[in-house]
């Protein structure tokens, strides 16, 4: 404890204390020590809060969910001609998203490579004609309308821009479900602070969309001077 702190504390104490008032139990503690405990308490509080906020809260907020079985984009990417071989556009311009069983069945009617995951897929899903209940990392809330055609065809964006280098991954990362909203962690982004975003694909919040649209000169909203709400909402 420094002297300056002691002095200050003394003078404060003197100013507060009424002359002749009976001394309380607590005040028997040495002033320096009391002051110290306040600071320590503050620091402890601060530390606890920081630990809770940065470590405990994210751990509690996200519940890790397993995918039905593992999948290697890398292996498949080598065998097919780009993302759109499986993640294709339908004739009406809508995007099919994660492929359904009928597409996988072309190759996986029987076990091909012999990994345990593939066996699970073939025996439990293909043979039982059961669609795989994949958890979708990039699933947006129901109020969102997203057009892949507008981004991929019209704006000529790459898949990686928003989805990252998922095509090079050898296995599926754990799906972290936000226990409050039910959506994937990937929407908010891996960084719990939401700061120091380096790539577009690191988060998929409304502001991320809006920033990009604004940058591209889309300002049709009378209220916000950004892009109009109905462009991405339904």
């Amino acid at each position, binding site marked *: 404890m420094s002297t300056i702190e002691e002095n200050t504390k003394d003078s404060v104490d003197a100013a507060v204390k009424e002359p002749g008032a009976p001394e309380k139990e607590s005040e028997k503690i040495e002033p320096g020590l*009391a002051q110290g*405990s306040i600071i320590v308490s*503050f620091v402890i509080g*601060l530390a606890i*809060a920081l630990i809770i906020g940065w470590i405990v*809260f994210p751990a509690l*907020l996200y519940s890790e969910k397993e995918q039905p079985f593992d999948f290697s984009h890398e292996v498949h990417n080598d065998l097919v001609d780009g993302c759109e071989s499986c993640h294709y556009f339908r004739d009406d311009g809508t995007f*099919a998203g994660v492929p359904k069983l009928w597409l996988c069945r072309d190759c996986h009617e029987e076990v091909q490579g012999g990994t345990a995951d593939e066996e699970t897929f073939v025996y439990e899903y293909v043979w039982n004609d059961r669609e795989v209940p994949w958890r979708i990392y990039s699933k947006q809330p129901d109020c969102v309308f997203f057009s892949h055609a507008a981004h991929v065809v019209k704006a000529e964006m790459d898949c990686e821009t928003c989805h990252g280098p998922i095509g090079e991954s050898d296995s599926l990362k754990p799906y972290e479900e936000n226990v409050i*909203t039910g959506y994937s962690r990937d929407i908010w982004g891996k960084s719990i602070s939401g700061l120091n975003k380096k790539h577009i694909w690191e988060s998929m919040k409304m502001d991320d969309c809006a920033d990009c649209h604004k940058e591209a000169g889309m300002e049709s909203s009378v209220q916000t001077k950004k892009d109009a709400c109905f462009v991405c909402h339904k």
Partner: protein
Amino acid sequence: MKIDRRSFLSLGLGAAAGTALTPLPWKLTDDLSIWTQMWPWTPVPQDGETTYVNSACAICPGGCGITVRKVEDRAIKIEGMDGHPVNDGGICPLGLSGLQLLYGPRRIKSPMKKENGKWVKISWKEAIAVVSDQIDALRKNGEAQAIGCISGLRKGTTSQLLERFLLSLGSPNYMSIPSSYDAYELAVSRMHGRRMTAGIDAEESNFILSFGSGVIEGWWSPVRMIRAHSVWKEKKAKLVQMEARLSNTAAQADKWIPVNPGAEAALAMGIAAVIVKESLYDKAFVENYSRGFEEFRNMLLDAYSPDKAASITGVPSSVIESLARDFAGASRPVALYGRGNGSQPGTLFEAMAVHALNAIVGAVNRPGGVWAVEQTDDNDWPAIQMDEIAKKGLKSPRIDGLDPGSEKDPGSLVSRFSELAVSGEYPLKALFIAGANPCYSFPDSNAVKAAFEKIPFIVSFSSYMDETVEYASLVLPNHTYLERYEDVPAPRGMGKPVRGITRPVVSPLYNTRNTGDAVIELAGKIGGSVAESFPWGDYETCLQETFGEEWGTLEEEGFTSDSDFSPRSWEEAFKEDSGKFNFASAGFLDSVREIVPEGDDGSYPLILVPYDTLRLSGGYIGDPPFVIKTVEDTVLKKRDSFVEVNPETAGKIGVKNGGYATLSTPKGQVKVRVNHYDGIKPGVIAMPRGLGHGGTDEYLAEKGVNVNELIGPIPDPQSGFDGAWGIRAKLTRA
């Protein structure tokens, strides 16, 4: 170290400061707001691939083509089929709501048997066995004729299968429910001397005299007629509407002629009388292609001179005269028959009066007129096999005492159903119901219910829990029209040949079965000659064999049609003397001309007439939730029905607008609210069909009053069809 108050506060302060330095508050706020935006109980519809399936609507006989939008396996929306000859993309509120019938709470999910007043689910095998046992017992007992069937379908293979089933069992009591179209067809057939179907080339007409036909309110083929109405507006054709109430059709007509209710036939004859008297008729037609004109002329001039017609109809003679001149002077006039949506048959005299009016201006088999086309048998099925029991059964008279082969339409049985079913020639012992809800939609529905209570064995094929099912002993639920194959015959009054097909848009949701299949299976179970009469493995095979080459097109396009079709010219249609159009045909000139409504005018000073609107389905399927939602609050408020009363009449009774009143007729008494409506003739009360349903659907049941409880049938002596158009009534302040 001891924790005192200050350090505790400091701890809190530190925690607060620390929290502010973490993402927790912001992230939590964001997540909580997302959570409140998407409550877990708000459904999130699954997305997927959108596909479209062409099919046909079978809710009413309108014959529209539909396109169902699907997302994966779910049907999302019904739309009108583009390019369909009947509706070309348009669709009515009921057709749009078909998915609410498919997915709705009204569905019957499995065959059921009533045990001690409660429904018990049973298997199809058991259900078929129960029915065949009952039928076997009746047949062995020599009571084959006591098996009846009421079918809501007049045409199409399912109705033909049902009729065939009854004949193969040995019963002449197959009853179908006739409409104004059947009455008109009968009138045309009598006057042309051959079995005819009647089409109206409405789109080409330019002067339309509508005798109470709700042209834009569901008449015959609802969407087609609304489209025709728009064509009339575009080319400035004239529509004259004659009825006691300013209906929506009257409101859109160029002229509304308020006529005494029930006097439409007299008005038609009055107009014809002027045309004849002033020699405005089509001489080429009358002189070359008709007979009996002299008798017709004499009758008209005698009974329907403008003054006489004016006194019957309440329409000034000057108006009748000017209508006659305008009608006869138009290049493509046509007169339309059938009140409201045309579901009630009316009298043969009235139908003939309207057709005679068409004939004297030559509006027969020419553009814009009535097209009379000879009926051909729809199928070439093998002859029905009959064992001794069946032959014996078919020697019995029908329940109305007529010979089985009687000329009188089987539709005539339903107008006297409640009386005949229990005290006809013999009581009915078993009854099949298909595509009909007699306990709701037959006139005097309470008497119908009483009759149903006395029939020991009733089998319903209904897909929906309705009033009639409540009286059944067994239900063999049909697929809905969105789950089954079935042919949809040409809509009423279409003129050009069209056939549609319903198909399984979605796989059947429940343990239901196509009635066609159920009948074939039932026949198989009964065995013997009954089984031999149904040589098809299943109903789909029957359809394929029946339509032969046409089936392929039906499967592919959803419909077949012949857009180039035109009826035979006068020359060809009426070339033989005997085939001439007969103005004095049997039952016209000497028939009962007017139906006097039930009740004496002393006790019942007013007249109650039902009316139809496209927002209320008066048929066997009640309004789905979307449609009942469109009903105005001057028609239905909470559970109260409104009746339309002219303010002048209401003033005399002393009922305020919106006030409660007691409405009584010789058939019953109900509490209603009064809607002061300027568009109705004083002394007349109007009430919509389609309210007052029972059943279990909370979106439909117990709303308002069923007008059929208040009006009884009056069989037309000529056709036997129900000729009632209203009833005498009394309204008192409640």
